[in-house]
């Protein structure tokens, strides 16, 4: 039996765009030089690197020297938070973040707590949001960094980044945002938003895995945590991943060009899914704020189902989606994001699935997936 598989897990990772592959290949075959080398081979890749840096800076309204290429979003988050914490610990030891951050931020903060830093985890409301007032009342004189994600990877919920940025203009604390999910789908201008540090990952936007960048506003005091050569202005040692960075550049360009179009399409995908669930008479609810969300993420609670059985059934039907995070022993742990929003006892914790759309998804696919999902949910809730 041939089954066309449908990939609805783009927030986990995404396929590399063919144009990205095309852009990368010469930097693995023809232009392989080390950008730090002083010969022509080095100059070829150095030029590509500088161009990529320029492009990436432009996509967020930054300057080229404010872009630090990393191995991905996780490293960018680590560098931002640990880097600022270590460089500014004489000034203060207080960090503010939220309870719904990606583990790259949460576990970095937990690590810093063990190192003697004081971390405030702001709770979210049932829409998955924090308010500027919460940040305001948590701020202290010794607060050195506020790290609040742009758009949530599990629910897509957007935080009031602009307002928090405004608030922090009058405070010494740096403002970091993990924009791994939002980048490429939402226009971001770091100057207008008052952002000091911003993390981006390549593989979420149809670029290759293993590359990303951290925007570090000029003047931000940051201690590196990878030591070696003097690459990235001594902020991140190690020979640059040139093919990856060129791929990221191409992916970012494509993402910028198609932003509006994608937004419309993914919103349509959401409507198709929800309308189908409605028509099929399924007991469901969307997790997170109704409208203030990233367009490509749709997190749905299917009441009366068990997510472990649901996800396996979806997989066996060729539909890839996800939920929470798998523990090292493979079983699914309740999502800390949904727990933060609805509490430990909510039915939603064990019955929610995240669908995330991206490159390659078609209306036909989403229609078929929605119908198959409805069928499976009905079967599971019938017993």
């Amino acid at each position, binding site marked *: 039996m041939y089954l066309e598989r449908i990939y609805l897990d783009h927030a986990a990772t995404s396929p590399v765009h063919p144009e990205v592959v095309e852009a990368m290949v010469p930097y693995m075959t023809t232009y392989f030089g080390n950008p730090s080398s002083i010969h022509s081979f080095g100059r070829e890749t150095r030029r590509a690197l500088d161009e990529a840096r320029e492009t990436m800076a432009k996509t967020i309204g930054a300057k080229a020297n404010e872009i630090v290429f990393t191995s991905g979003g996780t490293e960018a988050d680590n560098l931002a938070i640990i880097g600022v914490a270590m460089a500014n610990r004489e000034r203060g030891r207080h960090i503010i973040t939220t309870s719904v951050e990606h583990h790259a931020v949460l576990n970095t903060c937990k690590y810093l707590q063990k190192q003697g830093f004081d971390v405030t985890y702001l709770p979210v409301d049932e829409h998955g949001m924090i308010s500027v007032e919460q940040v305001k009342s948590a701020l202290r004189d010794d607060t050195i960094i506020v790290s609040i994600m742009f758009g949530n990877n599990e629910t897509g919920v957007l935080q009031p980044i602009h307002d928090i940025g405004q608030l922090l203009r009058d405070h010494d604390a740096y403002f970091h945002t993990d924009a791994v999910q939002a980048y490429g789908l939402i226009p971001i201008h770091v100057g207008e938003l008052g952002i000091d540090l911003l993390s981006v990952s390549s593989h979420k936007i149809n670029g290759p895995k293993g590359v990303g960048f951290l925007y570090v506003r000029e003047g931000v005091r940051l201690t590196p945590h990878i030591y070696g050569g003097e690459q990235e202005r001594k902020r991140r040692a190690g020979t640059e991943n040139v093919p990856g960075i060129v791929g990221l550049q191409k992916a970012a360009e494509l993402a910028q060009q198609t932003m509006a179009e994608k937004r419309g399409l993914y919103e349509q995908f959401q409507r198709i899914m929800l309308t189908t669930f409605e028509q099929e008479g399924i007991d469901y609810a969307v997790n997170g704020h109704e409208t203030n969300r990233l367009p490509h993420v749709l997190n749905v609670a299917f009441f009366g189902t068990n997510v*472990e*059985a649901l996800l396996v*059934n979806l997989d066996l039907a060729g539909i890839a989606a996800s939920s929470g995070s*798998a*523990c090292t*022993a*493979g*079983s*699914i742990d309740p999502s800390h994001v949904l727990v933060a929003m609805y509490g430990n006892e909510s039915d939603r914790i064990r019955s929610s699935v995240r669908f995330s759309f991206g490159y390659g998804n078609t209306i036909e696919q989403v229609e078929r997936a929605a119908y198959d999902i409805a069928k499976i949910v009905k079967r599971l809730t019938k017993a």
Partner: protein
Amino acid sequence: MARVVVGMSGGVDSSVAALLLKQQGYDVIGIFMKNWDDTDENGVCTATEDYEDVVRVCNQIGIPYYAVNFEKQYWEKVFTYFLEEYKAGRTPNPDVMCNKEIKFKAFLEHAMALGADYLATGHYARVAYRDGEYQLLRGLDANKDQTYFLNQLGQAQLSKVLFPIGELQKSQVREIAKEAGLATAGKKDSTGICFIGERNFKQFLSNYLPAQPGEMQTLGGEVKGTHDGLMYYTIGQRHGLGIGGSGEPWFVVGKNLKDNILYVAQGFDNELLYSDAIIATNVNWVSDRKPHEPISCTAKFRYRQPDVPVTLEMIDETTARVSFSQRVRAVTPGQAVVFYHGEQCLGGGTIDQVFRNGERLTYVG
């Protein structure tokens, strides 16, 4: 193509079970059950290693794999029972309870929810359809037969269950795994109770139940020392008593929960350790046809003990009186008694009261 969910533990038995089913042409899905959270402060849990083995084996066989979490059910149905029994001074059998409540109930339901036609496990046991019903038969490897732990299954379960390695000897299972190059071919068999693993049992139990040290006495009231808490001892136990002196070694023969006394007696074959009848509770019959008259069959009072001929009579729906034709040593309340007729496992129950010469041995517990 019939779909089979295989409960995979990361051991060689369930690995080979999955392999054989795949070779027989079934649509096989491997599922790892996570029943116990023993994550330490470093975030390391032993289940991780076992799951990694499941992943490797499933990829080698070419079947999809998943995990399912039954920690909550396990805690409520198995671990709570386990603690309650210890509190009551008895020696529980969590493996029997796990099979009844988790593997062949919650997990079976999960498998059915995935559209499976059958659930398979790596147990050494067989199922046969004879005389209009499903029979549970001993595994052909007499040394490995696991029907003792499966005594609580009934027709509803057996009609859905496959035991692909029940016809094999353990050595054959290892051979098949080796030939197929399965990652678990050389893996050591797990020992002990699953959630305790290789850890110190005493220490584990003390995390959950307060230990109350008390006196060790003979039934005559002679104090022989102190014990660390009644729950740490089981009938017939020799080690860990620390009673010196001359003569034969000392053994646990009973418990007095009310006065917190551990009864001991001297000699492996001390008469106090022997009984000739029991009352069993929670008796399950594999067949839907319960015996209404006393029957002759054999019974096991412990895993891997030789069968003993018994006469069995049902007193009510789930309670049986079992009399043995010969005396049996160290029959222990809380443990399973399992009935056999030849190769057929008829069912079983929980040892509740123990008798000798028509008198209840109240000191046993």
